[in-house]
């Protein structure tokens, strides 16, 4: 009888042709996947480019699609703007400090002026006005008619707390009263 081995241990052989066809399919699958992935990222980049269009227009930048080159270009531009921002920030801080000092100074002088224009007094004569380190000091006389002496009050509400100190009242010829005031303005925040 012919010995036919239906369950041969002989190694199965795959034809090269079919192997190459399968290989080709695999390569196509891989390249196709990569293409779709690349398209997805490109779409995302286009979205970013559209969303930040105003930014690119105003800063003179644009996305080329070469990610590394784009990152480098945007980074350089960001550094440029950061330096500009820091410089401006310093300028604005200096300006703010200047404006704060100036407004304290103006408030002090306006408060002194408000006290000097005491509406109850006939006349006000300032003998000395001093200002240093945001604190103002004024030594002045108020002249009242008769004996109607009142405590110094500003005509308008001052923005700074003031501390008027009456040093003395003096009747003068029974017609006038003279009041000496030492006024201190500011320096309450220290």
């Amino acid at each position, binding site marked *: 009888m012919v010995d036919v081995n239906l369950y041969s241990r002989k190694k199965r052989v795959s034809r090269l042709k079919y192997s190459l066809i399968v*290989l080709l399919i695999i390569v196509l699958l891989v390249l196709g996947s990569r293409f779709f*992935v690349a398209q997805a990222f490109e779409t995302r980049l286009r979205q970013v480019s559209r969303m930040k269009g105003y930014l690119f227009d105003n800063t003179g930048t644009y996305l080329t699609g070469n990610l590394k080159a784009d*990152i480098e270009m945007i980074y350089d531009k960001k550094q440029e703007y950061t330096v500009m921002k820091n410089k401006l920030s310093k300028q604005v801080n200096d300006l703010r400090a200047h404006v704060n000092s100036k407004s304290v100074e103006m408030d002090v002088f306006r408060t002194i002026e408000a006290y000097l224009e005491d509406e109850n007094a006939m006349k006000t004569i300032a003998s000395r*006005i001093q200002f240093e380190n945001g604190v103002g000091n004024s030594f002045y006389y108020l002249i009242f008619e008769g004996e109607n002496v009142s405590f110094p009050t500003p005509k308008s509400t001052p923005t700074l707390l003031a501390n008027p100190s009456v040093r003395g009242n003096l009747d*003068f010829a029974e017609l006038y009263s003279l009041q000496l005031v030492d006024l201190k303005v500011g320096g309450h925040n220290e």
Partner: protein
Amino acid sequence: MSEKDEFNFEEIDISTSQESFDGNDSYFIHRDYANKLNRKLSFLDRKGMNSRLAFWSLIVLTIIGFLFLVILYSYNTFENTSLLIDEVNGLESAYLGVQLLSRVRNEAIGSMSTRSYLEELEEKIPIEAKPGDYKGITVTGGSRDILDIVEMIVNEPKILVRKLELRSNLGFPILPESNIPSNLSLELKTDLTVTGNF
């Protein structure tokens, strides 16, 4: 065509193998298989490789292909895209900051510059428009003139008063009937700073 016709029957001489077989034996080959055997085979049909080796090779190739060409590529592109978006957001933040600060600075400087009359003040007290500290400024004059100068100094946005002292030459007491004497004079001593901020 009957099933019989599809096979080629050939006589086999098996005279030497009487032990195992009695009578005539024959073998048969299906016609399709015969055609297949007679078919002209190309190089790629004749050559082959071990099926198992081929299977695993293709699997490994698929994995490596996907790993390098798809997964690694996706990872790198994702990383770079994220970094790019971060950089773009950083640039936007810096740009908006610059715009805001520029506006604040320009408005402040514009507002203060229009109120400045430093040139006029230069004619009245010994200072210059050049930024810097000006110490020991002393001015003596009529009360109205000196008070005007003090008002100008205080209202001048480019000037900061470091120190100011204003004294009158009046004695005490002052007679109201006499009004303000015509020889009343004030002395102004001041240290000023002209800012270079704008």
